[in-house]
């Protein structure tokens, strides 16, 4: 029983790290533009699929990962320029629908490029499982955890210690005031989309050796990332990370002890409960107005 629990925890934290990275992307974009980007999951899918395609084309794994991430950043910037910028000032419902449209569009592009087949990347450092206190851990899980920790620390440092990071934070508090003190809000918006696309792509590449990837792979991951951001209190980057880990662990425990078929229902039931009882999320600002 304790070993089993430990095993589920390991699985949950691995998946949760992924949700955390996707949720972090949601929070970044929300901070900069008050838009929830429903195409975030498609960044994850594009990163994974592009890396796999490049690797199959003969690129070394590391290079394939970098190029795939850069390509996805490019897609994020294009999305911002051609779908978000023209619709500045649109209502929440409109922006939700625009980004859903973008998600379907990107899925359509992936379908044309790669068909409906499933693909996987080889593990970064072999697939000999490591025994850890009764639980088996795939080396790839350690990669996921390690890279997530580094990325989260980097994003934190970016917000707390660098000028662009602080400028982005200023935009999230008050865009007009940020503009007034000389921050180029448009550039900040692009920065947020680029960063968040990059984070999504990296998440996709990290998980590609564990789960198979296909043109549809981003849908559920995107929704879980959105859930992570909501549970953590939308617009709170570290809240999104905590929300992602919580969601991952809960889902793994639910799948292990209750029913694996109902694991998505358990995850979303938890999100609904959080919304009903803590409508601003577990770690949100209590006073923040949500409109």
């Amino acid at each position: 029983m304790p070993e089993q629990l430990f095993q589920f925890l390991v699985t949950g934290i691995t998946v949760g790290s992924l949700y955390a990275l996707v949720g972090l992307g949601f929070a970044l974009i929300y901070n900069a533009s008050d838009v929830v980007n429903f195409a975030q999951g498609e960044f994850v899918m594009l990163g994974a699929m592009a890396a796999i395609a490049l690797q199959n084309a003969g690129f070394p794994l590391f290079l394939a990962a970098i190029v795939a991430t850069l390509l996805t950043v490019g897609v994020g910037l294009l999305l911002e320029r051609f779908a978000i910028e023209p619709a500045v000032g649109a209502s929440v419902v409109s922006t939700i629908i625009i980004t859903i449209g973008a998600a379907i569009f990107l899925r359509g592009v992936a379908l044309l490029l790669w068909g409906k087949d499933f693909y996987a990347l080889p593990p970064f450092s072999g697939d000999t499982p490591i025994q850890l206190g009764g639980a088996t851990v795939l080396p790839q899980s350690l990669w996921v955890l390690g890279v997530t920790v580094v990325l989260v620390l980097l994003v934190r440092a970016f917000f707390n210690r660098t000028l662009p990071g602080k400028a982005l934070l200023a935009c999230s508090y008050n865009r007009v005031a940020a503009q007034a003190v000389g921050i180029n809000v448009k550039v900040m918006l692009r920065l947020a989309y680029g960063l968040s696309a990059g984070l999504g792509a990296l998440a996709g590449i990290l998980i590609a050796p564990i789960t198979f990837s296909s043109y549809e792979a981003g849908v559920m991951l995107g929704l879980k990332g959105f859930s992570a951001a909501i549970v953590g209190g939308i617009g709170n980057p570290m809240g999104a990370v905590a929300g992602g880990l919580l969601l991952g662990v809960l889902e793994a425990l639910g799948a292990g002890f209750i029913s694996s078929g109902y694991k998505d229902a358990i995850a979303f039931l938890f999100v609904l409960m959080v919304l009903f009882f803590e409508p601003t999320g577990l770690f949100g600002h209590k006073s923040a107005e949500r409109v």
Partner: protein
Amino acid sequence: MRLAGFYIFAAVVALLPVLFPDNYFVVVVGTSAGLHVILAVGLNLLIGYAGQISLGHAAFFGLGAYASAILSTRFDWPSLLALVAGLIAAGLIAWVFARPILRLRGHYLAMATLGFGIIAHVIMVQATQWTGGPDGLAGIPPLNLLGWQVDGDLQWYGVIAAAMLLVVWLSLNLVDSQVGRALRAVHGSEFAARMMGIDTARTKTQAFVVSAVFAAFAGSLFAHQQAFVSPDSFNLTVSVELVTMVVLGGLASTFGAVCGAIALTLLQQGLVVFEDYEMLIHGALLMAVMIFMPQGLFVGLTQAAHRLGSTLARSKFRRSLD
């Protein structure tokens, strides 16, 4: 006069099978378009008029369908009774969930309705002993209306057209009633609406319940017409498609929703040939309409026609001065 548009629409719907007898396209695609119209008109009350998004509306569509399917196959209920039970169940569930869900706004509401839709879909897939699981339920008897067994494409076209016209008529009247005005006030500003003495929570709940009942109505008809249901017809993609219909036609216009539903049905039929491109075009269309014509095709084109008309009139007037 207020319902002139409705009478014209009803006449067109009635004349189509007369003008094109034995036309597969009219009866089969028309039936599917009719169901979509019911769904879109109901959802439009919520999204278009009350301004509350729902990304999980396929759940109510599925609830109606599965209520009819389960009650009429496993418990041998008469189909009409099963249909009514589905409507009541959808109304009750919507009423129970409305308060906690509609208290949320914007993105939080989107999340909650999304979650609701996904949970409903998971239950349809997993509760195998009731729903038949991923394989679905087959052998659903056709609708029996007080002794008349609906049979054949043309009869189904008639039944669904009548149901659709009823829903459109109800919606047109509802929107023009006190409830409809209250809904629009809530959309404009919830705070101001409350200042005017409108019970905003109650108004939003009413819109949610009515749209859920309409969706269940479409679901029940769908189940009896297809004689088969499976979870695939009620997943997230369907919820998004329903929102697309409402947005495509034009928010806060019943005929906008009608146009959106018909346009998307025709588009899906047309795109069957380009199967692989369907998703790409669907996504691009959604983005383009929302960016360039946020008020939707129907409303946008009507306004453009008005503008064109007045520009022409003005230039004519100017020429007459010269």
